[in-house]
């Protein structure tokens, strides 16, 4: 059923409008704050807008739930396929919801973490614009609209990585990230031109109606290859992942959490959307399965060798993307549900891990695991939250990581690829090795080389909230599973409805 509604059909979908408004007015508010001396105005403005964003995502979801399988199409002037449009379905709202949740928590955290930095106006503007870009990617219905918001997300994140520009590390990491990610964007543009040449349109629904089910010719395989390169650079699939272990540690704490938690998952979501719309599963199953195994294995092996806490967490992010690729390669709704659930869980768990690591670096200024021996005894609340998140990442029962990994591996067996499940379980066991090493190092008796006290109350409170959410979703996963199930059905069984929403107008 297609209906245009007052909430989203006017100009832009409401969450996107809220974020763009906030990001656009923040420079003026920053100027005002400096002139009048109201010091905290910028932070409060950013927190207010991210909270408004969360509320509007909830309203949008309520509207979609009114009738199952409903798709809202909204465009500005003129109608698809010639015009850019937003096609809002449950999958888009799911991704936008993940963005909103982690973004709100990260902005509240950075109220205290970033208070001694300069250029705070630019920081909060770029965070809000990055969130707007990610929301736009999640809700886009036309390939070029996705590209514009993709660039918005990318440009903001390049400079947020290089934000602490008085040291060489962030600048080099930011430049390397820029070069590799912009190369990916160029390949993405190339794949868009190939799609345009073959089917004359760039709209997702028309594209699906034209190109799906065509037998693979060499040009279609070239299209698949450029799509994987284009989206894979941003979402850190293994041959293209080399920017990530440099960029994530050098970024400031809450930005690392945002990058690892939701930016790379947005790349994965875009890959998921476009390949499920354009190709039938027989074309891409083997490619994604091979990429999943390579990604998981290489990342876990590299993570065993790390001594830097944040770099270890960055390699762990790459391996979690490998787990999500398992779900992508099955081609069924069940596997896709596992991937989507893992996106939500990973954003919470990895976000918590990076924020707890941010606590530690804020108090001690060090990141080396060996030198930080015993820090857990000096900062008990932070250590508790860090342990919960690391155990969740390893897949211990009673955390939500266990549930999503269980769904992923059982879907791999059910889709006839037991090798993937075996590789996944072995990699899970391997990853527990380095997580337990971190926990053991931090809890052991301190050598007496440094002193640290507990982080400020606001930062600890955000950490505890996220840890509670992890355990809650682990013991009572039904709502999240239902949500992910409805979202995953839109790409496999509800594809016809998605296409009809635009083509049948």
């Amino acid at each position, binding site marked *: 059923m297609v209906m245009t509604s007052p909430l989203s059909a006017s100009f832009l979908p409401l969450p996107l409008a809220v974020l763009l408004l906030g990001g656009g007015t923040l420079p003026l508010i920053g100027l005002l704050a400096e002139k009048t001396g109201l010091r905290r105005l910028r932070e409060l403005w950013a927190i207010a807008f991210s909270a408004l964003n969360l509320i509007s995502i909830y309203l949008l979801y309520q509207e979609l739930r009114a009738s199952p399988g409903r798709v809202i199409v909204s465009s500005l002037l003129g109608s698809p396929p010639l*015009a850019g449009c937003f096609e809002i379905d449950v999958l888009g709202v799911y991704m936008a919801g993940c963005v909103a949740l982690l973004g709100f928590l990260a902005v509240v955290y950075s109220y205290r973490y970033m208070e001694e930095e300069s250029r705070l106006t630019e920081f909060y503007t770029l965070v809000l614009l990055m969130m707007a870009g990610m929301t736009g990617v999640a809700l886009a219905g036309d390939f070029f609209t996705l590209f514009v918001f993709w660039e918005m997300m990318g440009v903001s994140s390049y400079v947020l990585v290089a934000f602490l520009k008085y040291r060489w590390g962030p600048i080099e990491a930011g430049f390397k990230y820029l070069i590799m990610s912009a190369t990916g964007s160029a390949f993405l543009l190339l794949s868009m031109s190939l799609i345009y040449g073959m089917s004359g349109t760039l709209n997702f629904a028309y594209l699906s109606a034209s190109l799906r089910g065509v037998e693979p010719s060499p040009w279609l395989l070239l299209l698949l290859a450029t799509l994987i390169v284009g989206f894979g650079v941003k979402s850190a699939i293994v041959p293209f992942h080399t920017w990530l272990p440099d960029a994530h540690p050098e970024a400031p704490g809450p930005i690392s959490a945002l990058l690892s938690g939701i930016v790379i998952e947005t790349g994965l979501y875009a890959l998921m959307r476009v390949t499920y719309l354009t190709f039938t599963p027989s074309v891409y199953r083997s490619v994604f399965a091979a990429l999943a195994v390579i990604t998981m294995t290489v990342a876990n092996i590299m993570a065993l060798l790390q001594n830097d806490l944040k770099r270890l967490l960055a390699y762990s992010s790459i391996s979690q993307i490998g787990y999500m690729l398992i779900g992508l390669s099955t081609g069924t709704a069940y596997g896709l549900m596992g991937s989507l659930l893992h996106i939500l869980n990973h954003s919470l768990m990895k976000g918590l891990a990076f924020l707890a690591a941010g606590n530690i670096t804020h108090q001690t200024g060090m990141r080396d695991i060996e030198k930080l021996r015993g820090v857990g005894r000096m900062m008990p609340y932070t250590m508790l939250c860090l342990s919960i998140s690391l155990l969740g990442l390893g897949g211990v029962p009673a955390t939500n990581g266990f549930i999503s990994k269980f769904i992923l591996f059982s879907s791999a067996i059910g889709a006839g690829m037991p090798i993937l499940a075996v590789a996944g379980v072995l990699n899970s066991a391997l990853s527990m090795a380095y997580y337990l090493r971190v926990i053991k190092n931090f809890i052991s008796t301190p050598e007496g080389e440094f002193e640290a006290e507990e982080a400020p109350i606001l930062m600890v409170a955000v950490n505890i909230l996220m840890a509670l959410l992890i355990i809650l979703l682990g013991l009572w996963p039904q709502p999240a599973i239902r949500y992910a199930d409805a979202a995953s059905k839109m790409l496999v069984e509800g594809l016809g409805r998605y296409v009809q929403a635009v083509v049948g107008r």
Partner: protein
Amino acid sequence: MRDDVKLYLASSILLLLSLLILIWLTAEYEFPLFTYAMEGMPRLLIPIRSFKEVSSAVGRFLWDWRMLDLLSQAFVILAAIICCIALLKPGGEER
């Protein structure tokens, strides 16, 4: 210098190989130009008869049908401006 020479050699071999593969692809298989386009899909075509008017016609198409992307692009330009300010503003001393 050995490292440099090795890098040049490896990258030139790789690139030459991919170039040969791509040229073989172009020569052997004809590009399926608009073959998969749906019937009855609305498309707007501009005749090249009046050569000078093509650019203004494309411009009119841009403003009539692609307004959403143009407005979003304005925000991307805003983001790039704020990025450059954040990078070039003198602030943040050594800690």
